[in-house]
């Protein structure tokens, strides 16, 4: 445990109290003692507030939890707000705060302390810092010291460190500047302090009681801690010593000494390995010996000594990992479990209070898991937890109570299943589990329900109780090899190429056919004029009144065949209107078209008219036809 201490006024109070005590015991210093007592009273009336933060372990694995407790000691707890935990960026708050308060009433003076416990889970690995947390106490903001927590990778137990954890408090009390004389060395008065522990081998989480003793041969007037004691690697709980220090006569090396118990601490190692309880430095004011009695009546001749206890090394044994029960949450000690329901009969939607109480000898701060599992037949609200600890003799007793409110959702006999709590008993060196008996709750239907209507159920969302991977899959229809996808198959490539090849082929074929057709058309068009001329020559031969019909047929044939050749159609179905249309499409002028038309009509008229025409008429028609053809040829090829 790393302790970050920010005491304001505490050191003064201690010195003052001890000064008062020293004055009471002192023979000649009553005047000074009285003054000091006055000062002490004034100090007590002032608002003395101390805040400190500590964690139950300074080295955790990344999946473990850390219990952070912020303790406020003040004269009254009226205006103590919870710490501002917004700055806990390196940690995720799992639960909390669990608030517990302690009151003390000593010599007419009350002092109280309130602690806020949070269960944290570190985010990430490495050295994570719990920053200075601000608390609003009686309108003033007090800050704790930052604490470093070393987060190591891995899931299971915390690996045994090679030595005490490295992360000490930052800005914590340093070593005293004054060199300390060896305790056994010769001095004007032999005063020594030492630390005594009840055991030097302990399991992780087992209580070690450390007593800090003062052995003196001379009269001690005043006594104070040089700096606030700090026990890295331990969770420290103060064991109150009586206001009037216990006094004992002891012999040390055949020398008589008076021994006072100055301070007792219940220490809980938070990690395995070799941990050291560091020396605690005291400032001791003693009466100088061999003084003039007159002088010593008015002026107390004093001398201030610096003494530091020897560090004590504790061999901390890790909890056996092999036999660790599954639900073990880290509690070490000897605990009892009680589960009680406030009633055994209820109605649907009628709340039942269930109290789970775990109490016993040991540090309860490590117990953070909600002991009652999620129950399907009850609606369950987050429990109200309260924790308290007390001392029975020198052993720390802890008690943690979870108050659940359960709302039965279905009628019938519902069971609250047995609650199991596992802990490690350091006396026997083995794990123990305590279980409660299951509690049967008779749940009746709601009273307002008649026989005919269905019970009114308050609906709640289906909650996910846990998370895991989905189960394996079965293959009832056999396995399918998907190592070669369809797009890799040769068929796919063939089919991809197929339309390209086919379309290209079609394209080439149609182009070729068109080209051939175009060739034929061009030839026919080119030859249209000469063909027409040939036909007209033929007509000229028949230019005689006897064969006038044949002549006109030949001229009409030459004209219409010319048009058919030019426009690549058959001459047979070519009407005059169609020819007109085709000529117009080639941009032949209106006059030329009508000329052509007139020629054709003249031929038709002459062919089918009964009166035979004379030679001159024929000659004129032939010339007109030739002219028209020449003009047409020019117009079309232009």
């Amino acid at each position: 445990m790393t302790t970050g201490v920010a005491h304001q006024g505490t050191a003064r109070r201690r010195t003052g109290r001890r000064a008062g005590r020293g004055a009471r015991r002192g023979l000649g210093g009553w005047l000074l003692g009285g003054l000091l007592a006055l000062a002490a009273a004034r100090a007590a009336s002032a608002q003395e507030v101390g805040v400190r933060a500590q964690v139950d372990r300074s080295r955790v694995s990344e999946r473990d939890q850390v219990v952070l407790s912020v303790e406020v000691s003040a004269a009254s707890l009226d205006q103590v707000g919870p710490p501002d935990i917004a700055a806990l960026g390196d940690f995720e708050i799992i639960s909390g705060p669990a608030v517990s308060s302690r009151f003390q009433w000593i010599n007419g003076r009350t002092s109280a302390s309130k602690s806020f416990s949070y269960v944290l889970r570190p985010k990430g690995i490495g050295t994570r810092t719990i920053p200075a947390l601000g608390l609003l106490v009686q309108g003033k903001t007090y800050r704790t010291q930052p604490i470093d927590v070393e987060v190591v990778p891995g899931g299971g137990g915390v690996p045994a460190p090679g030595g005490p954890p490295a992360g000490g408090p930052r800005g914590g009390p340093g070593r005293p500047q004054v060199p300390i004389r060896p305790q056994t060395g010769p001095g004007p008065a032999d005063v020594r302090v030492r630390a005594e522990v009840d055991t030097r081998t302990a399991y992780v989480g087992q209580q070690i009681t450390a007593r800090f003793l003062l052995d003196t041969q001379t009269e001690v007037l005043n006594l104070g801690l040089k700096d606030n004691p700090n026990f890295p690697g331990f969770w420290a709980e103060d064991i109150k010593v009586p206001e009037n220090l216990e006094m004992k006569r002891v012999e040390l090396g055949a020398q008589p000494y008076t021994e006072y118990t100055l301070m007792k601490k219940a220490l809980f190692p938070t990690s395995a390995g070799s941990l050291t309880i560091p020396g605690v430095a005291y400032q001791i004011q003693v009466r100088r010996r061999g003084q003039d009695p007159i002088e010593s009546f008015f002026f107390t001749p004093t001398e201030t000594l610096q003494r530091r206890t020897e560090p004590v090394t504790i061999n901390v044994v890790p909890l056996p990992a092999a036999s660790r029960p599954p639900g073990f949450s880290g509690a070490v000690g000897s605990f009892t479990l009680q589960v009680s329901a406030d009633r055994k009969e209820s109605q649907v939607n009628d709340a039942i209070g269930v109290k789970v109480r775990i109490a016993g000898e040991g540090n309860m701060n490590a117990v953070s898991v909600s002991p009652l599992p999620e129950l399907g037949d009850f609606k369950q609200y987050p429990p109200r937890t309260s924790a308290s600890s007390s001392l029975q003799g020198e052993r720390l007793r802890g008690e943690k109570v979870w108050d659940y409110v359960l709302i039965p959702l279905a009628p019938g006999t519902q069971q609250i299943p047995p609650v199991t709590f596992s802990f490690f008993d350091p006396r026997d060196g083995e794990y123990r589990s305590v279980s409660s008996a299951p509690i049967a709750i008779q749940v009746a239907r709601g009273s307002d329900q008649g026989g005919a209507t269905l019970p009114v159920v308050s609906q709640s969302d289906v909650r996910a109780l846990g998370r895991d991977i989905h189960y394996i899959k079965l293959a009832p229809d056999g396995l399918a090899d998907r190592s070669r996808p369809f797009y890799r198959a040769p068929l796919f490539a063939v089919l991809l190429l197929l339309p390209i090849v086919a379309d290209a082929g079609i394209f080439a074929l149609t182009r070729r056919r068109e080209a051939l057709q175009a060739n034929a058309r061009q030839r026919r068009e080119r030859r249209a004029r000469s063909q027409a001329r040939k036909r007209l020559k033929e007509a000229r031969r028949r230019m005689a009144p006897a064969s006038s019909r044949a002549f006109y047929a030949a001229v009409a044939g030459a004209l219409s065949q010319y048009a058919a050749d030019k426009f690549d159609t058959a001459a047979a179905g070519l009407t005059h209107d169609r020819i007109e249309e085709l000529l117009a499409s080639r941009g032949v002028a209106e006059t030329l078209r009508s000329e052509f038309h007139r020629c054709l009509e003249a031929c038709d008229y002459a062919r089918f008219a009964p009166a035979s025409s004379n030679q001159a008429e024929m000659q004129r028609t032939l010339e007109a036809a030739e002219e028209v053809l020449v003009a047409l040829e020019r117009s079309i090829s232009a």
Partner: protein
Amino acid sequence: MTAGRAARSGARQGLWGRLPALVLVLAGVAGAPALASTPAELFGAGNSAYEKGRFDEAAAAYETIVGYGVLDPRVLYNLGNAYYKMGRLGPAILQYERAVRLAPGDREARENLEFARGRIRDRVAEPEAPYPVKALQEVLDVVPTDTLSALFLALYLAVGGLVGACLLSRQAMRQRILIYAALAVGLCAAAAGGALAYRIRDTNATEAIVMQDRVDVRSGPAADNTVLFTVHEGTRVEVRNRLEGWYQVSLPNALSGWVPASAVEGV
């Protein structure tokens, strides 16, 4: 992981490359007649071992199936599950990734992959696709790759047929109708082709999973180069280059460096 590697190389070599391995496996199995030998029997044996909580046995059975060259996404999924239950996150994530590549629509495989990825040490922010893209991806993921391929092919052939008919047609009106139809179907084919190309790119992306608890990523392909950053088991990296037993890998956040080839396993 050698079985997985064998499976991949087997898949690459095709049937002929796989045959000797198959014969070897069959010969080995013949010596122990009680053992299951066909992939289906092995699958059943693996499943029953998994049910009884003997995950290592189950994983061995599934790996044997993969070693035969039979790649069924369900086998890979179950193999991932078995590795997950054994606490081996790297192989589990690798197998889930492979299963998702084979069957992108498998929600369970995706969720298990996400779940397993939630337990690895490295948190690497993957770029988030905007909503419409994501919705489209989800719809497309449901369609199996082969269906997508067939759809694309059908549309593509239809375009080919329409263009061919258009070429053959001699009437201007009919030609115009056919051209418009070909354009419309062609757009559909392009969409299907795009989806298929995306899928193929996804499937063939050169990604790898870190298989060792802790791997130093160095600035160059040799052990004496500076360590740039460290990745942990289960993290997915993209393989950029390969050089003499070293891979150049990069993370989605643009960090990049070289790792020994043995430290990662290609998906």
